């Protein structure tokens, strides 16, 4: 099943299960979503629950939050994550803080589904992965699953969660295929990383879009260079599974961090800092390396666009660098 179909399935199952769940956003209805992630849902659930909106990101996000505070459980299709700029007040100043400011009363169960990342030739205003903004704001959960099965399991948990969840999906990976459990009770808990590969020489921590490349790189260096790579797939950024990261680092003593957001100020910087201030620091056999998108706005030209991201080759090179193989 593709990531796209996993998203449709997760939302549909949850909407069947709980009548308070509904989907809203621009062109989610007859158009089936800018990325086809709601094709067929209008037909099953009708216009009330698959709700086309005006081009009004502020009202969309505000409306979702108010609905959530009063008992509904909206899923918002943000489409391109870049448009979340118009939702910042509602997400950051309202949704994230309401419960705290009100002394523990109320909750805001909204999922913001954001199509992140580059890869479709849409240039600088349509290619950003902005998860770091939200990881910095107490009160928000942030998730970025990297396989179709994880997409389904994490999205379902996000919908069931009583907090606001920023959900990253990757426009370059809607067609990515994989096994997906069909059990409607299959979920994956938020806050749990998964060891996608076990290994002993090097730890690679990643999430979201880069998982696919990291796994390829890990398999290739194991095969070609005999380097045993442990791949820690975060899936959830907030709450962060620090234990999984630190345990792996303590085991291998070498660590590479990979994401598709810009390097400076990106979330992997937080992970590096977290490791460097922890007791795992004492187990480190070398520097903590990072591979991320270059610090340039995403260029339009397809070759340049591609070159701004960590490639499988570069990930391999960094892994080998860590074990002093090259």
């Amino acid at each position, binding site marked *: 099943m593709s990531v796209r179909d996993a998203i449709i399935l997760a939302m549909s199952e949850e909407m069947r299960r709980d009548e308070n769940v*509904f989907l809203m956003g621009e062109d989610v209805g007859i158009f089936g979503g800018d990325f086809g992630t709601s094709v067929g849902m209008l037909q099953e659930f009708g216009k*009330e629950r698959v709700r086309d*909106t*005006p081009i*009004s*990101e*502020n*009202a*969309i*996000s*505000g*409306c*979702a*939050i*108010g*609905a*959530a*505070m*009063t*008992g*509904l459980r*909206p899923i918002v299709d943000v489409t391109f994550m870049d448009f979340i700029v118009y939702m910042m*007040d*509602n997400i950051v*100043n*309202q949704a994230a803080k*309401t*419960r*705290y*400011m*009100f*002394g*523990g*009363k*109320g*909750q*805001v*169960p909204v999922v913001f589904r954001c199509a992140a990342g580059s890869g479709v030739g849409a240039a600088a205003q349509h290619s950003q992965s902005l998860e770091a903004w939200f990881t910095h704001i*107490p*009160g928000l*959960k942030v998730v970025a699953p990297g396989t179709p099965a994880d997409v389904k399991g994490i999205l379902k948990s996000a919908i069931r969660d*009583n*907090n606001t969840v920023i959900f990253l999906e990757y426009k370059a990976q809607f067609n990515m295929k994989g096994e997906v459990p069909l059990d409607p009770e299959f979920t994956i808990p938020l806050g749990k990383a998964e060891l996608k590969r076990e290994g002993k020489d090097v730890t690679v921590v990643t999430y979201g879009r880069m998982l696919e490349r990291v796994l390829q790189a890990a398999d290739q260096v194991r095969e070609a260079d005999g380097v045993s790579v442990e791949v820690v797939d975060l899936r959830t950024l907030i709450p962060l599974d620090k234990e999984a990261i630190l345990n792996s680092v303590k085991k291998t003593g070498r660590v590479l961090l990979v994401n598709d957001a810009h390097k400076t100020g990106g979330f992997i910087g937080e992970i590096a800092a977290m490791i460097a201030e922890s007791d795992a620091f004492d187990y480190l056999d070398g520097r903590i390396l990072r591979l991320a998108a270059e610090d340039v706005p995403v260029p339009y030209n397809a070759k340049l666009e591609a070159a701004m991201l960590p490639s499988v080759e570069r990930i391999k090179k960094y892994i080998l660098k860590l074990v002093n193989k090259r």
Partner: protein
Amino acid sequence: MAKSKKSTAKQEIPKEKLLHMHKLMCNIRNFDEKVNYMVKRGQVPGMTHFSVGEEAANVGAIAALSEGDLITSNHRGHGQTIAMEIDLNEMMAEIMGKATGTCKGKGGSMHIADLDKGNLGANGIVGGGMGMAIGAALTQQMKKTGKVVMCCFGDGAVNEGTFHETMNMASVWKLPVIFYSINNFYGISTPISSVINIDYNYQRACAYGVPGHLIEDGNDLLAVYNKFVELVDYVRSGNGPVLVESLTYRWHGHSTSDPGKYRTKQEVDEWKKKDPIVKYKNYLVENNLATEEELDEIDRKSLDAVEASVKFAMESPEPTLESAFEDIFAD
């Protein structure tokens, strides 16, 4: 677009309700004057905004709501909150940052809420409550509760983009929400007339295909109340949103510290002569709907309640350090 009627109680408002509205106005006045007094003495730790002068615009509107209806408010939320009959003790404790406060001392004046009573909260962001209001209205519509939402904001707030987007969405989806602009003529120091190019905010209703209403004397409690009875009914009947505006005035500075150079003493004094509480008292007495003594007695009791709230707040404990780390996420 219909204009408001003048003071009248001909819809036969029960005396109990008439007196109760007086009490709520007194509560707002006494509460905020007391907080102001304490602010001046450094006894209040944070930023506060007062509703003194705007009592009728608040009480008249909210008194027209029914049990289960909801509101959102803004930074100047005391008036609405008190009109929604929040517990004064808890409110005062909150403003003093105490553990017994509405928000356990973590929200303060700008974040007083009472979700159980339908108050979705004051808001420190101008326009910040508008999205919530239409969302709450969507819930009422989808769940067919028959309840309405009142979204309160100032005059300056109509220039935020969120006003436009939420008004439009509410109109297109026919949501049961009343957009209520409490026009006190200034956004901090900025006269509303200098930042819109029309005469009144309510006229913006034209852009959304919704009715716009002006309550010219927002200090006339019954004018406000009567108009809102009509509007709440209209909105509850499924006709979609309305935009309504009351003209009133704030007696004090914008917030805790305000040099006040942007308006003249004369202007402020003129408005103080139009005191909404005095106006209402006179009306009730002149029309033999209540005696001066009755009304003064209510005022005195209100003062006592405010004093009691201060005592309660003063004697309440500070929140513990650990409490700062609680209430971030729901389970």
